[in-house]
């Protein structure tokens, strides 16, 4: 059993493992309130990949991985990021949704003040 330290490495390894054996791969999530650790395990009965975390930001990554794996397991031809569930859409499965940077809303020093023209 191998614990992988970084999330991107774990996600890539999981996707590769799944592609090799889609019928045999299972994804197990183990949570204990006592320890507070969330342990993710993906195995095809030959190789085992594990990731352990106790930080809240990893919860979003975990949810994203769930939806990616579910789409692959079901062999659905929809896009991964759709949350509304459109069964009639015929889009091919795409890469995981990229986090779009929010537009900067910083005010103060960065805002440029335009000088008004003086009418003489």
């Amino acid at each position, binding site marked *: 059993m191998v614990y992988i330290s970084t999330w991107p490495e774990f996600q890539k390894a999981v996707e590769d493992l799944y592609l090799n054996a*889609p*019928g045999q*791969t*299972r*994804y*197990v*999530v*183990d*949570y*204990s*309130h*006592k320890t*507070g650790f*969330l342990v993710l395990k993906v195995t095809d009965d030959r190789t085992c990949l594990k990731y352990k*975390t*106790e*930080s*809240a*930001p*990893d*919860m979003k990554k975990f*949810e994203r991985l*769930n*939806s990616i*794996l*579910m*789409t692959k*397991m*079901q*062999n*659905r031809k929809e896009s991964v990021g*759709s*949350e*509304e*569930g459109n*069964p009639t859409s015929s889009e091919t499965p795409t890469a995981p949704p990229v986090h779009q940077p929010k537009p900067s809303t910083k005010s103060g020093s960065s805002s440029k003040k335009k000088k008004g023209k003086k009418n003489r």
Partner: protein
Amino acid sequence: MTVLDNDTFLIRLSEVFKAAEPIGRKVLLSMKRYTYGERKLIAKQQKETTESSSEAKDVSSDMEYPCLFRAVCGKTKLSTVVTTKDGNKFLNEYHTLLRGFIKMKPKDRKKDKEKKAVRVQKKKATTG
């Protein structure tokens, strides 16, 4: 193991989490492709395609599968099968439920600041 419908599974899962929390028991959730009866179906479809045409098609790549979800806590075992039609809806409800019961540590901003300071110092050392 009882195979439940999706809504009942989620209700029972929330009860399992509530019961496990004070005791500190582990809850195991698993997700897998549901392939029961697949071999027979593939053999049947391949037989049909070989009879109708000479080209052998890869049937399994076009097939959509349901997903098997299981939850185990002590002696309580639950399971449900999620079809492709209900996949997104079930997953949203499942995630909402997990967010309520899985409590993890918030982001440690102090450690992040320290890490950032170390990175900046390293950069200065390499450039300067």
